[in-house]
């Protein structure tokens, strides 16, 4: 069950540093080059990049926070390091498999 869904508006323009201030220490972090060969978990990222943009091999930073025992939040940022800008997010439960 997802409660108090986080809207895109509240995350727009957010950097990794700012998100870390807001949500605390992440439970997981990853960095990857976005291609169309993404896994189901990351598939919604493709809604935010055109074919031309994907051809430039955008670097994505993926950061996950455990908000509660039943709720995780993953934010994706374009760019490396703490200055990457928010692209997309997914709220999910630990019981979900993708």
């Amino acid at each position, binding site marked *: 069950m997802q409660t108090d869904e986080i809207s895109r508006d509240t995350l727009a323009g957010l950097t990794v540093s700012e998100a870390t201030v807001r949500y605390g220490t992440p439970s997981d972090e990853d960095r990857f080059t976005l291609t169309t060969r993404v896994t189901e978990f990351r598939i919604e*990222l493709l809604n935010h990049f055109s074919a031309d943009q994907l051809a430039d091999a955008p670097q994505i930073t993926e950061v996950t926070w455990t908000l509660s025992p039943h709720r995780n939040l993953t934010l994706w940022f374009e760019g490396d390091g703490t200055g990457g800008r928010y692209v997309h997010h997914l709220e999910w439960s630990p019981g979900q*498999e993708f």
Partner: protein
Amino acid sequence: MAGTKTHVVKKGESLSKIAKKYGWPSGKDLYNAKENADLRKARPDMNKIEPGDKVIIPEPPVDKSTKLQYRKDMPRMSIDIDGKKKLIFVQQKWQYDWKVKSGCSAWTSAQKKIFHNDCDKAIWAKWSGKYQVACSGTSDFAKAMKGQTFNVSFDIKYVSSGGHWTVTVTKIPKGSKKTSSVKWGAQTIDLDTEDVKKRKDIDQVPVAHEFGHAVGNSIHGPAGHGDEYHDDGVHFDDKDSMMNVGSELRKRHADHLIGELNKMIKDTTFEVKAIK
């Protein structure tokens, strides 16, 4: 003839040894099977077969009192074992909840049926007829099925109540993306209308992958393993695998099924012998 094999005799083999290998009661029964008329003509003495002789191996005779059909209903699927047809039939009842993403038209009855049929076809194509399962043990069933292999079929049934799984399907604009997932504990599946199409850049139809979770490839289920694409997983490099980003089945993907089959018939153990 279905189930009939030909065995070429090797040096040192006897008919009783060959009969035992294929689950026949005795060498004499096998020798006297009507399919072996040519062998009897060439070798009137059954104890004098020679290397190179061909022994036809029909399906072994089954004691009519042996129970050959078993069924098990579980919270997430039902399993039917049919010894006569050499078939293991796995069925999940899917109860749908239809959603629409902003900007999409409402679902029609026809669209719902088409979506279900597309799921069924994708699952059938990717999962059915692949696993070759055999059994062994001391039960009458195992003895009757010795040397035989079972096909495994996977099916989903559209139901309006009493579903094993509640399947929420969201209609989304063509070409757009939405994350799909399965919750083993809650018995829910989240899909979207793009999930019945093969992905463009990976060899996978998403609904077949999600079905893999529902049929037991879940870290929350008894098998204890699910997605294989996490970079800390042992099967991370097996990109062709169904539970990674491919479409090929592996023996491990049937772990839950085999575990359940092994609880169905006393003194009978099933195992995946091969994958087609």
